[in-house]
């Protein structure tokens, strides 16, 4: 150890906090990439000064094709359009080439080819991310995991499943439903989003209040490092000795490499549910009920709030029979063994009455439960009818500060002449303001960006966070210094350099684009003993 340390001392590298140390000499660097950093505003990719210049040699593309097959490489410009953005549509940038490996080993082979010529890459699952985490910036190669679509093992007695990265979230629960099991994290995009993407973003969903988020359900990952080496971290058995590298990979937004497969924990399907929809005159009253329910010692499976604009949109679209003059509705779901559920539901109802609830609807069967959930799950679709475009923000406040943040959001909407609808995971304090706009109106787009930043600033000021489940991506890199000190960011940069010393894995994500270069030692991977 001492000998190795001596050997490596003095190996210093300049690591940009943006993780782009290799970018300047690497093929695929973007025109103007060094002229960025105009103090804090959000940009479109073009505004950022990125103008991608094709630089990948034809021979390199041919080598990639040799690994993944002719149908595994997409490089026709019209076909690449699909990949120029994910669910975050305010910025667009197409990769030069999309590679679709068929096996984890092929991911490793592709990465080895890229490592040899120091080319940066961006991993992508289904492209449902909401923070631009798969936007290729100074990364000419996109590695898409959609053909890694095998569920490899289902272990019912041990409640484990091994799924490749491209397996769709919902397939996992579908595959084990007959055994009375499910995979708990259920983001709204679950019919499309992939396990690999969920791991990268540490995805949540409406049921995280009781069941936790992705990191609580991932026991192991196989990670293809930027060097091309595949390394299995963690596994089906708990309590493996050593640093919790799995916990660090989850939520790293693809900046450590490409996750190729994951070992997931399954949970028992709840035996029974009680689902209630409570209608309130105001968000304040509904928030008071949320605090009351938590304070009464009830941990609901879900506690979701929607404000008036959402109610009106849902009602206009789906005619569910919601009162369009209501200030807020609260969807409350309690689950578990049947015994005691009625008692818990009765106590939640009593709390709502104390908070001045106007009306409570109780689902009497699975059909009625689905109908009540429809109003929540279709909220985003309904909003699509209100404006040509919308941008979903994602911020967190301590749950008791929900009324304050909702008031601030209303003020921000007034100030920026925007319409903002609110749907959120009230039990977690995870807000999702939906900013409505028309992308043809450049001024309105600019106001959407400014309003988004103002809301995030308020979240941080209230003791919260920039993102609860969508990730930093490119969307929020400029806001990171609101939450983290230079020392915090340096610690993260050190961690990143452990996995990706050359900064080639999903560059320009998470870390603010400050022009600050920090001197940090890049530890070289040491041989296993």
């Amino acid at each position, binding site marked *: 150890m001492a000998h190795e340390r001596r050997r490596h001392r003095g190996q210093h590298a300049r690591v940009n906090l943006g993780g782009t140390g290799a970018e300047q000499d690497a093929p695929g660097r973007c025109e103007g990439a060094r002229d960025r950093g105009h103090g804090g505003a959000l940009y479109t990719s073009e505004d950022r000064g990125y103008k991608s210049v094709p630089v990948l040699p034809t021979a390199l593309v041919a080598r990639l094709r040799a690994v993944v097959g002719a149908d595994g490489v997409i490089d026709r410009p019209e076909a690449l359009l699909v990949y120029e953005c994910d669910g975050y549509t305010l910025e667009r940038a197409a990769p030069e080439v999309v590679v679709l490996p068929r096996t984890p080993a092929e991911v490793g082979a592709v990465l080895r080819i890229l490592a040899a010529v120091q080319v940066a890459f961006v991993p992508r699952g289904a492209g449902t991310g909401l923070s631009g985490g798969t936007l290729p910036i100074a990364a000419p190669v996109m590695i898409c995991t959609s053909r890694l679509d095998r569920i490899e093992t289902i272990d019912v007695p041990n409640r484990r499943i091994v799924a490749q990265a491209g397996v769709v979230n919902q397939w996992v629960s579908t595959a084990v439903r007959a055994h009375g099991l499910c995979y708990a994290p259920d983001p709204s995009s679950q019919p499309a989003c992939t396990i690999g993407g969920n791991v990268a973003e540490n995805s949540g969903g409406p049921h995280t209040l009781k069941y936790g988020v992705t990191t609580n359900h991932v026991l192991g990952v196989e990670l293809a490092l930027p060097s091309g080496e595949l390394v299995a971290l963690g596994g089906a058995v708990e309590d493996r000795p050593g640093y919790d590298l799995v916990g660090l990979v989850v939520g790293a937004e693809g900046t450590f490499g490409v996750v190729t497969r994951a070992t997931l924990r399954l949970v028992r399907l709840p035996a029974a549910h009680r689902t209630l929809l409570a209608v309130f005159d105001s968000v304040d009253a509904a928030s008071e009920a949320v605090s009351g329910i938590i304070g009464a010692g009830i941990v609901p499976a879900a506690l979701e709030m929607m404000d008036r604009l959402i109610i009106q949109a849902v009602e206009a679209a789906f005619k569910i029979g919601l009162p369009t003059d209501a200030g807020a509705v609260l969807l409350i779901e309690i689950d578990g063994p049947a015994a005691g559920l009625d008692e818990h539901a009765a106590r939640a109802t009593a709390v709502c009455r104390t908070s001045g609830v106007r009306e409570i609807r109780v689902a009497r069967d699975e059909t009625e439960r689905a109908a009540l959930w429809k109003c929540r799950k279709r909220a985003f679709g309904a909003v699509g009818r209100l404006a040509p475009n919308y941008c979903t923000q994602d911020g967190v406040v301590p749950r008791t500060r929900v009324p304050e943040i909702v008031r601030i959001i209303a003020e921000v909407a007034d100030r920026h002449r925007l319409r903002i609808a609110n749907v959120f995971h009230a039990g977690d304090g995870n807000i999702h303001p939906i900013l409505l706009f028309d992308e043809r109106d450049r001024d309105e787009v600019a106001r959407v960006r400014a309003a988004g930043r103002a809301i995030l600033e308020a979240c941080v000021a209230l003791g919260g966070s920039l993102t609860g489940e969508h990730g930093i991506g490119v969307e929020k890199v400029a806001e990171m210094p609101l939450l983290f000190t230079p020392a915090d960011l340096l610690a993260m940069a050190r961690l990143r350099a452990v996995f990706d010393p050359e900064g080639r894995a999903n560059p320009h994500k998470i870390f603010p684009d400050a022009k600050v270069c920090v001197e940090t030692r890049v530890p070289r991977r040491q041989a296993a*003993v």
Partner: protein
Amino acid sequence: MTDWGALVGPAWAAPGRADDAVDGVVPTSVVRPAGIEQVQAVVRAAVGDRRALVPSGRGAHLDVGAPPARVDVLVRLDRLARVIDHQAADMTVTVETGCSLACLGAALAAAGQWLPLDPPRPEETTVGGLIAADLSGPLRASQGTVRDLLIGLRVVGADGAVVTGGGRVVKNVAGYDLPKLHVGALGTVGVIVEATFKVRPRPAAEEAIVVACRTAREAADAALAVRDSDVAPLWLEVAGAGGLAEGPGEGAALVVGLGGIAEEIAEARACVQRIAESLRLRAAMVSGGTALRARLGAFPVEPAVAVLKAATLPAEVGAVMERIAAAAREQGTAARCLAHASSGVIRAAITEPAAVAPLVQALRPTLERAGGSLTIERAAPTVKRGVEVWGDPGPGLPLMRSVKAAFDPSGVFAPGRYVGGL
């Protein structure tokens, strides 16, 4: 010599004594900083003078891990013991890491809440020790472990800067999940000074049912039957022969913890009884489930020459317990076993010093080949000297070495205590 007294005040720095020993290694000095700034000063001095530093709380779990290569200074954090901010309505608590679990528990109980982690010796276990040694107890069956409840940390790093990871909100994916780095790391990558946890409402009532079984395998199978039923156990322990002080002697037992409101407990109790009857086993209620849980949770620190910890898949618990018993018999001794059944974690208490190394050799390869592990959780220093404490941490070891090098470049944080000699 580093003048520690100049950093923390002469009254709070002293030469190490025998009872300050970290796994048999007596520290040269013991310092007790009064606040984060003093911790920073101590870390800076340690790094500057290349002094090996071991963070400590009240010293209850300093025998976890491998004996350190050397200890120049033991940094006791027992003066950083405040509960900083308990937001009952937000179900979060921020606490200094020198605070004991008993003290934290009392603060939370006032609001009907708890931090549902139940390692042994809550009076002597600090929040920092809980995190650094990744301690848990029977409640992990339903409540998870430290990694599931920890949402924020403040850590003094090797450069002396305070680094904040995570935050104070229950859902947060901004930046890397740095708190995870420190869970179970035994202070090898920084000194944890402050932590924020999710807390939960404490169940209205708790009780336990003991199901007497003929063999450990039968008890482990019954445990899975309970797990797969509508019982939703709060905890689920399987005791082998002698694993349960009040237990059935040579037989084995399944102990099911139930929590909740009266109606939930009554239904769950009836359900466990039905399962027991269907397996032709006898179930007996135990009033005071909390006290029984605490006794079972204390198993790792009960008097023994060594406590081994085996980790396996939940469905393998019975078989592994039988293998441990058989291996102990071959060594001419007996192993008392107790398992967190649904987590696949089994502890074996060994009383014969000479049997420890052969038992580890006999059991470890099979467990590791199946993706599990066998670690020596606690043992007398003389016993540890003859055997590798951690076993193989798996293919992630090279990355772990890089992590250690990145966060402790001069190698002053608890050198030698962790996996692979880190």
